[in-house]
């Protein structure tokens, strides 16, 4: 019996030891059922922190709202004049500065201009939408080195070559299709004997006296950006950019002894699209296939001396067309237009 008493003590000790263990204080497992299955209601109305926006001076705005459940939401801001669109999406119960801030950037081109806008909030599964007006006083400035936006015509130091094919249109056009400003470069024509339809060389000397573009020496920081437009119903075009480095800094690019890097962009889409390429990701291409650069095989953006743009298309497939605008180098990340 004595033993039993002793054992009982052991049992109590064990149970006490175990019950002394702590459990996680998580209130419940998994997502809140309210979020999954509860009814939706707006607990706080859809508002914007500032309705008159000077993005040019670095201003931003954020949207505010609070829902009764976790929801997939979308805020779409549309420029009333330009038709530019900015789309912000998220999944949360609350819209605030962390989830719904706008810095003036564009999702669907053209870019915003100083104009009146409308912001619309839609929530998945909810038929009602909520809107409010905004106005842009100044547009967002994009830091970087602008190669071309075609707003002031052709730089005389650019070298432009176009084939003498049928329906050739290889020039700056000014109309409301322009994604930025009023002008862009149009490239179109039928060349049934060659892949090349036309090309433009942008030498560094077109922008000052230096033979190099003003870029840093870190290829991981330098981004080349361009807006390209795919024309529906035409032969698919390839836009090839070549970046030529003057490694020995003698003022000229020597193809047999110095590095050239390329990016070839098949324009498979319709409408405008931003294409951004990190300088470090460029490769040397020979007829579209990777090859070995001829120079020091190092990417030296600070020695970039010339950019060439070639507009190519399969010669057997007829008329090809695309458009180009806003060639710009940015530092630290791709362009956020």
């Amino acid at each position, binding site marked *: 019996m004595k*033993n*039993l008493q002793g*054992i*009982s003590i*052991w*049992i109590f000790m*064990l*149970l006490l*030891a*175990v*019950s002394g*263990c702590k*459990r*996680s204080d*998580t*209130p*419940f*497992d*998994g*997502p*809140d*059922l*309210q979020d*999954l*299955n*509860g009814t939706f209601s707006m607990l706080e109305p859809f508002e914007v922190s500032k309705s008159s926006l000077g993005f040019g001076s670095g201003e931003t705005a954020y949207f505010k709202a609070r829902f009764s459940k976790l929801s997939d939401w979308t805020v779409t801001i549309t420029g009333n004049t330009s038709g530019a669109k900015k789309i912000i999406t998220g999944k949360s119960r609350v819209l605030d500065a962390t989830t719904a801030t706008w810095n003036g950037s564009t999702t669907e081109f053209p870019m915003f201009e100083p104009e009146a806008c409308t912001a619309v909030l839609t929530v998945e599964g909810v038929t009602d939408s909520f809107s409010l007006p905004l106005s842009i006083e100044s547009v967002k400035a994009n830091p970087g080195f602008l190669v071309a936006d075609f707003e002031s015509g052709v730089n005389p130091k650019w070298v432009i070559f176009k084939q003498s094919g049928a329906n050739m249109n290889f020039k700056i056009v000014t109309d409301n299709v322009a994604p930025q400003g009023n002008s862009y470069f149009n490239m179109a024509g039928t060349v049934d004997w060659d892949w090349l339809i036309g090309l433009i060389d942008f030498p560094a000397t077109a922008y000052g006296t230096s033979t190099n573009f003003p870029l840093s020496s870190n290829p991981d920081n330098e981004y080349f950006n361009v807006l390209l437009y795919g024309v529906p119903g035409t032969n698919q075009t390839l836009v090839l950019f070549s970046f030529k480095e003057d490694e020995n800094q003698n003022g000229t690019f020597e193809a047999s002894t110095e590095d050239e890097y390329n990016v070839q962009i098949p324009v498979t889409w319709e409408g405008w699209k931003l294409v951004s390429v990190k300088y470090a990701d460029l490769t040397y291409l020979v007829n579209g296939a990777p090859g070995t650069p001829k120079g020091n095989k190092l990417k030296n953006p600070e020695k970039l001396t010339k950019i060439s743009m070639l507009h190519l298309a399969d010669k057997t497939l007829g008329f090809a067309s695309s458009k180009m605008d806003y060639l710009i180098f940015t530092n630290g990340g791709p362009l956020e237009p």
Partner: protein
Amino acid sequence: MKTNIKHFIILISLMCISSLLTRAQITKKVEFIGGSRTFITNNQLVVKDSLPDTTTVKRNTGGYSLIDLGVNITPNKKTEIMGMFRIRNAYGGFWGAGVDFSVRQLWVKGIIGNVVRYQVGDINLKQTPYTLYNHNEDHLLSNPDVFSLQTDIVDYEKFYIKNTWRQQGASADFGFTFAKYLKEITFNGFMTRVNMTNFFDVPERLFGGGNVQLIQSKYLRMSYHNTRLFDVAGTVADSNMYSNSVHSGVIALNKDFSRWNVKAEAEAGNSRAYFTRDSLAPDLRDYFVNTALTLKENNTRSFIKVGYMNVGPDFRSAGAQSKRINFNALPGYYDRYGNDQRVRGISLLDVMRNENIYNTSITSNLMDFNPVFNNVLPYGTATFNRKGFFGQLNLKNQKEWFLVNFENYTLSEIRGQGTIIRKSFLLNKGEVTLNLHKMLRSDKRFILTGGAVMQNTQRKSELDFEKVNLSSMNFNAGITYELFKQFDLLGGAIWLNAKGNDYRADRNVYSEVVDFTEFNTDSKQSVYSGGLRFRFTEKIYLGGFYQHFQYKDGINLFNNYNINQVLIIYNMTF
């Protein structure tokens, strides 16, 4: 094919060795162990689709004959080697077609220096219900004979022996006996391999553990148990390793008072499951307690038991929470049905007799369960996030005229699922066996059995989307009547009805709940079976049975189907 040839060569080698040993022996050194079975089945599917189902093949026949031949070699009195091969011939395969050779089990065991007993190779292991235990949670009722013949085949195929898990590895134990104060202390350790590395991204995974058991006297027993499922670092480039360890202590007190015996038992422990280098992975730690008090009448062995259990929501024990049934497996026959070839889920019929859906491995992921079969304790008593009381009343007549068993679990969640409101669970189970032949003092068996399990899961809330109310009823009834000596008429039926709603937790690889899927059911499943059995011995029998299975879906009537089966079984296991 390669494996097959390898198995074949091993088989022949062992046969030769054994024949040599047999020839050389004076005392018996080689003995043969084995079993054999012929199984022929003829099935018919009846689909109640919106249009006559012209897509599904409705009838099929199948079966096999197999021999499990074990060569039991005893090179000396302290060593025993066992190699068992399976030769399986598919029904319809003539002249060697459809033959499969496999090694069913291979182990060696013995004693080192009269001190340590060891076994290496295939091992059936069991610890406590919270550390290493093969729960049979989806078979809550004992089956009538006509069904247990079929479940016994599944158990044999999958090595389900007394809630053990079949593992591959090594085990060793030794013990001390004492003259005073203590009767004995035994030590056991084991290490098994759950999976080997693929030398790329799957690390070597082992499952090990052990226990120390102290038997003070017939009144007191205490033990400490530990299991651990873990990845072995260095076996793949990735250093992120999984580990799940469980520690448990058991105390059992036993005391006779006249014709009564009182037994108090308690098990408590904790677990931890984590990944060593995955910042997204949680470090799950929790504990459990299970205590019970049993009062037993020594003459009839009738008893009453009451207890309390508390198993934390983050308690993870791979050895105790791995499930027998893989509810995501395809049944292996009539996998799809109807004109749109919808997938046929695991049904009551499959749970009863389809070995294809049964699992033999321990897994770190929480396996899926079907709330229709068991929503109260889907991982047996090791089900996490449960607390509450349980009880059992077991009545027997001294002459074994009858056996009555009643069990109750009244439980609730410890942590809510998607809400702070917790679900409550109720499980009531009753079983009766009437040995009428003993009552009537007849030599011919006449046994009636019946049982019922009622389960209910509820979550009350003012918000409709939080409400849960799922009920299921499982009944069975059976008869065994010995028409002539050793020649039995068997019959039985099982019904499983479920109705209501619940939310099923969708878990990520870390077993965390990431979403809930609404589960609604209004289903009725039933199996009726009858046939004849001739018993050569208790484990060797020839039987022919007809079986009718119905699946009725009250929500989508076009899911309804029936399966009719004719089974011929000649089973020879020892």
